């Protein structure tokens, strides 16, 4: 019924306009989401943040307990999932194991009333478009992870959805396939003319695939913006960790920021009022004893709490004056005799810090 857009008023904006409220007693999801046609938005957040619940609410698989949901101006709150113009790519694809790739993709058009031959012709076209022309007759268990993912995408697209949902689209793939599929998926999403919303806990997937990120924690939106904006200006510890930045909150007075936890940081920017201060772990220099000749204005006494390899570097987790992550080379780590419990001095140059208003 909502597949025809007769009830759409002339002034209603195209795309998705939703406020998703799902109250389950112990957990409450309350997420506002506005997405324009052609835009790809990623819901990014830790496990249990409510991303998948939001996706299921959009698909109609989990009922809303409040809020609203409009797609191209038409209200969808009360529309059952089978009548929503929504396509879903599930995390483990859920391809029907008893049907061939072709019949999996033809399933949607068939349900929409197409004759068998017509549905199959459409399905073959979609599979061809996604580079799967040779695998039309294959049962899902004969497909590789990357192929299954594309069949799932073709199956979702074959219903010509106005809203495409992807739940952790790359999570089921191994690292090498992932790289390749991520690039392909980006291309297919760029071609998709309607609204696309994907859910992921992987910041790289989110940043590569999406035009805009919506970060969800504890059922709420904590930050949204372009990938580069979020990478540069994280507003929560979770995002800072995701993008690999040290993040602290404090009150700025000129070039000095007094952190909420006590110590002060000298920054490049002069600001006033509540601010965030961010700097990468590579900007932190560690010293075995208090340096006398360092030009760094920011110097703190810390204790090593953990060490792990991070690429070809060692990342040290520190506590003390303030919690920090610091990157250093293996050689430097050995020279400093770093081990959990070791006391070190950490310095950061003001020019390497970045402060921005809360």
């Amino acid at each position, binding site marked *: 019924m909502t597949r025809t857009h007769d009830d759409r008023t002339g002034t209603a904006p195209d795309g998705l306009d939703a406020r998703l409220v799902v109250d389950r007693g112990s957990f409450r999801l309350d997420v506002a989401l506005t997405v324009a046609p052609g835009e790809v938005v990623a819901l990014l957040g830790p496990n249990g943040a409510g991303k998948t619940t939001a996706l299921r609410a959009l698909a109609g698989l989990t009922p809303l307990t409040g809020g609203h949901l409009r797609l191209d101006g038409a209200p969808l709150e009360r529309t059952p999932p089978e009548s929503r113009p929504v396509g879903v790519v599930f995390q483990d694809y859920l391809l*029907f194991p008893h049907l061939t790739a072709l019949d999996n993709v033809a399933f949607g058009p068939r*349900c929409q009333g197409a004759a068998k031959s017509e549905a199959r012709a459409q399905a073959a076209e979609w599979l061809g478009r996604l580079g799967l022309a040779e695998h039309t007759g294959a049962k899902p268990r004969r497909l590789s992870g990357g192929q299954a993912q594309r069949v799932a995408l073709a199956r979702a697209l074959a*219903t010509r959805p106005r809203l495409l949902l992807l739940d952790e689209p790359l999570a089921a793939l191994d690292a090498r396939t992932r790289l390749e599929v991520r690039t392909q998926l980006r291309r297919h999403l760029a071609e998709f003319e309607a609204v696309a919303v994907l859910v992921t806990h992987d910041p790289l997937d989110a940043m590569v695939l999406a035009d805009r990120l919506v970060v969800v924690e504890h059922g709420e939106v904590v930050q949204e913006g372009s990938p580069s904006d979020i990478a540069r200006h994280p507003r929560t510890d979770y995002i800072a960790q995701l993008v690999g930045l040290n993040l602290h909150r404090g009150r700025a007075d000129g070039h000095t920021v007094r952190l909420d936890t006590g110590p002060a940081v000298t920054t490049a920017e002069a600001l006033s009022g509540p601010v965030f201060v961010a700097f990468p772990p590579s900007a932190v220099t560690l010293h075995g004893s208090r340096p006398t000749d360092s030009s760094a204005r920011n110097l703190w006494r810390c204790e090593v709490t953990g060490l792990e390899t991070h690429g070809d570097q060692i990342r040290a987790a520190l506590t003390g004056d303030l919690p920090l992550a610091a990157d250093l080379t293996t050689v430097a780590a050995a020279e400093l005799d770093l081990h959990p419990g070791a006391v070190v001095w950490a310095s950061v140059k003001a020019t390497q810090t970045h402060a921005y208003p809360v």
Partner: protein
Amino acid sequence: MTSTTKSDAATGALRGGPRRRRVRPGGGRGAPLPLLVPALIGMAFLVVPLVALLVRAPWRSMPEQLTSSEVWQALQLSLICATAATAVSLVIGVPLAWLLARVEFPGRGLVRALVTLPLVLPPVVGGVALLTALGRNGIVGKWLDSWFGVTLPFTTAGVVVAEAFVAMPFLVISVEGTLRAADPRYEEAATTLGASRFTAFRRVTLPLIAPGIAAGAVLAWARALGEFGATITFAGNFPGRTQTMPLAVYLALQSDPEAAIALSLVLLAVSIAVLAGLRDRWMTAG
């Protein structure tokens, strides 16, 4: 009650069959005596009666025994009624299994217990219960008689009803178990593709659980074929109309033991055929 022990043994063998094949123990050499001796006794207990049947079979008079019109009639009736009872069980049992597995409703546990009760209920009690419900003066049968002129007791249809009553729980249990093991998210995926819940069931769930349905149907069919107590209580023992093979065997045993053995061999052959068929099906389904 040869019929009961036989079908129970068949059930056990069906359940154990594929598992034994997979695990394949390293042979009896290491088995401790306190386990080995009872195990061998148990095996003999199950196998010796079947061997005795073969040993005592009147092989020479077998052709005449089996081609007599009474035997042929009873066999035909048994096959038709067991198949009809299985069909009835499929039509109403599969949706019931779906309801129990997929829909939350108050008292679901109680309903499941009631549905499976005929599994443990003595079949004769089942027959009496059917009489009180569907008999000419039964609480439902009364209306069937006066409204539609339908009488079930002591008719061939009554045999089907009695067999379905006893056999359907096997199917329901089997299908419900398969449904529970099947991922309900396939149905969700189907609905996001535009399928109604019924279409999702028909085009996705049903094919996915087909092996479970087939296994349940074969179990139900075998149980219906061997059904004795409920049938004789509810449908009586009229040759050509309600006298199925087990009834014929029992009756023959009083007058002509050789005929009883011959008839039993036929049922044994059918049971073995079912077992073989089921194993093949499971092999290909796996």
